[in-house]
């Protein structure tokens, strides 16, 4: 009844082209933002931040990054973990080499460095497609992890091969290090997520995003109508890696604090982010958030339910958790191949007609 376009008149082109054309959607979006910025920081505790919200926000950025590349530009990548590692190690080297550099710039520069590495590994995409490209990016994954393990310069010659985030502050609040408080790290990540998501959303609606989608849908046709595949593919790789690098830097500096490349940024991380965008929905910014929430929340919820509430043995609960997550992925792929975002779209379509469907 309230959820429909009828009566919501647009008088300018600007108003007509906005992201949320329906009044109700727009306000829901502002309410969610206001809740996230003004209410959550006051009720958040260490557990919610560390177990749920920080990983959700950080993986959302990674998922947006991969979705730009895979969902919008159609280039399959299995190198997400490796690119996240580039972001993390770049951030670490910047933090330790320039102790006075603000953490925000460290994170953004880490993203830029990752973007350059991403463009480099994106070059093969000009010649190869599909499975072959997936294997090329897989090589990037293994090469990067090997590199950060092998060359001691990247971890400042520490005995353990680990990198540890030193303490950094922003406006006097501790962002990294041991004594951070949950609201501060949460707000820092949230602010980055919001800015990056808005940029991503607008990029994908604009000229660049349309050229990516043209390449995705049929690259030869796109080339004939004047889309430069070199430019489109390499910008997709670059911007995607920028996002993934920022996610890696945040994962290391803000969330974990200490990182060992083989374990944290292994091939499993690439698959995790890939599952997120598949479950969330390829080619949708909302889908990135939905997928990240699904993959982060489901295991934690199941664990709390099975072990915390029902008191099951931890090993059985963990095995069951694996089975249930796997089963859900299969069920989703069969029943809703376009992911949670499509489910959301269907709900919205139905809501527009409700309560008079005919």
């Amino acid at each position: 009844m309230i959820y429909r376009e009828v009566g919501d008149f647009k008088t300018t082109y600007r108003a007509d082209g906005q992201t949320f054309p329906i009044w109700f959607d727009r306000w829901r979006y502002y309410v969610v933002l206001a809740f996230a910025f003004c209410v959550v920081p006051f009720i958040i505790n260490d557990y919610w931040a560390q177990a749920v919200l920080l990983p959700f926000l950080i993986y959302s950025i990674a998922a947006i990054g991969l979705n730009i590349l895979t969902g919008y530009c159609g280039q399959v990548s299995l190198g997400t973990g490796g690119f996240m590692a580039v972001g993390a190690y770049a951030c670490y080297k910047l933090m330790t080499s320039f102790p006075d550099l603000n953490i925000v710039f460290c994170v953004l520069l880490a993203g830029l460095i990752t973007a350059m590495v991403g463009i480099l590994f994106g070059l093969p995409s000009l010649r190869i497609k599909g499975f072959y490209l997936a294997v090329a990016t897989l090589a990037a994954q293994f090469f990067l992890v090997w590199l950060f393990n092998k060359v001691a310069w990247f971890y400042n010659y520490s005995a353990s091969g680990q990198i540890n985030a030193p303490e950094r502050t922003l406006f006097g609040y501790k962002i990294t290090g041991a004594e951070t408080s949950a609201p501060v790290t949460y707000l820092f990540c949230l602010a980055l997520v919001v800015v990056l998501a808005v940029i991503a959303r607008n990029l994908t609606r604009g000229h660049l995003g349309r050229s990516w989608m043209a390449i995705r849908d049929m690259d030869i046709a796109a080339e004939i109508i004047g889309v430069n595949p070199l430019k489109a593919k390499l910008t997709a790789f670059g911007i995607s890696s920028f996002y993934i690098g920022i996610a890696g830097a945040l994962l290391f500096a803000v969330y974990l604090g200490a990182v060992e490349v083989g374990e944290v940024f292994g091939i499993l991380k690439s698959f995790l982010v890939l599952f997120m965008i598949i479950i969330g929905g390829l080619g949708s910014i909302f889908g990135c958030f939905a997928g990240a929430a699904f993959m982060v929340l489901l295991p934690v919820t199941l664990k709390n339910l099975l072990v915390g509430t029902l008191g099951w043995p931890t090993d059985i609960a963990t095995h069951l958790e694996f089975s249930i997550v796997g089963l859900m992925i299969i069920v989703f792929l069969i029943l809703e191949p376009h992911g949670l975002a499509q489910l959301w779209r269907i709900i919205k379509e139905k809501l527009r007609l409700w309560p008079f469907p005919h």
Partner: protein
Amino acid sequence: MKLKTLTAMALVAAMGTTPAFADLVFPSLSYRTGPYAANGIPFADGYEDYFKLLNARDGGIGGEMAKVIECETGYNTEKGVECYESTKGEGALVYQPLSTGITYQLIPKSAADGIPLHTMGYGRTSAANGKIFNTVFNYPANYWNGASAVVNHLLDVNDGDIKGKTLALVYHNSAYGKEPIRTLEELSKKHGFELTLLPVDHPGQEQKSQWLQIRREKPDYVTMWGWGVMNATAIQEAANIRYPMENFIGIWWSGSENDVKPVGAKADGYKALNFHGVGDDYPIYDDLEKYVYSKGDATGAGDQKGTILYNRGMYAAMLAAEAVKEAQKIHDVSAITPQQMRDGMEALEMTEDRMEALGMPNFGPSFSVSCENHGGPGLVSVNQWDADAEEWKQITDFTESDMDVIGALVDEDSAAYAEENKVEEACS
């Protein structure tokens, strides 16, 4: 509808974990799943069974019941952090994550929250310097003691001269496996042996190329820093290339029954370090039988008693329980806080008499902890596997390691940490 039930379930789950402060809480960050489960299960069983025994026999520790909260980490650092955050609010007294990777995550958190961390025989070796690592303990022995003990054993075998010999280190390519490298490099300079480094990537099932290199270069000795499936794989590969087993020495994490049994008779003679007793020939096992096993109360499948890692879990629990007793004595309260637990750990002194009174005579080395030294004396023994009898034999006493070399390295590494994290020296 579906969404509603899901949110309701999440809410119920969140409410279900409300903290209860009544007991002495010992979180067990265990791993009963994944490639390291074979080693994680016995440790977790032993850890929990000891507290069950204390509750059933003595009515807890100093009148307070002990409560073990188990949280599955799968040896994964992210899950380990989640486990830490979810259990610390329940009054956790001490964390023993049984993972060097998780330890590195928890060291700064433990300092910030004031909850002590006991990383027995693993973790960050330089945490032995209590002046800098105020809340972290790694008594009775650490990796660098282990590395030195390997070299000392080689010196013993070779009548004190290993100049020109070659030693290959096969290690898990992670913080854990890299820990001994620096010490071994120092020792190789001191004693004049040659060191070859052979990293094995997680999880460690693929070691063909490393063992091919060993077959080609024929090092006189091989030592291993492995864990989980990597151990059994390495011993199998060594057997395949007919490497003499008595020249193959593992760290204490590469020396459990689960690592050698799959290889069968060919594993005979394999050596591994240890810092506590082997087998179930201790009076405490009679009590465990009487109060825990016979009541069907054993943790897990109950089939691990007397194994190396079960004993190690029990030893870890025993040291924690003794530290609680110390803390109760110092602060004169029975329901201690994590900060008081820390004081108890720092005042811990294990003597022969004390272990005998606990039903564990000669189970571990006698040692004492101080504010400056959180690492104990580093007394290490060597075990050897007897494949016919299917049991580990302790072939040396608990002997000292080269503290000249290790002490200097500990000071250097902990000073670097202090500078990075701006930690003031305590204990003056």
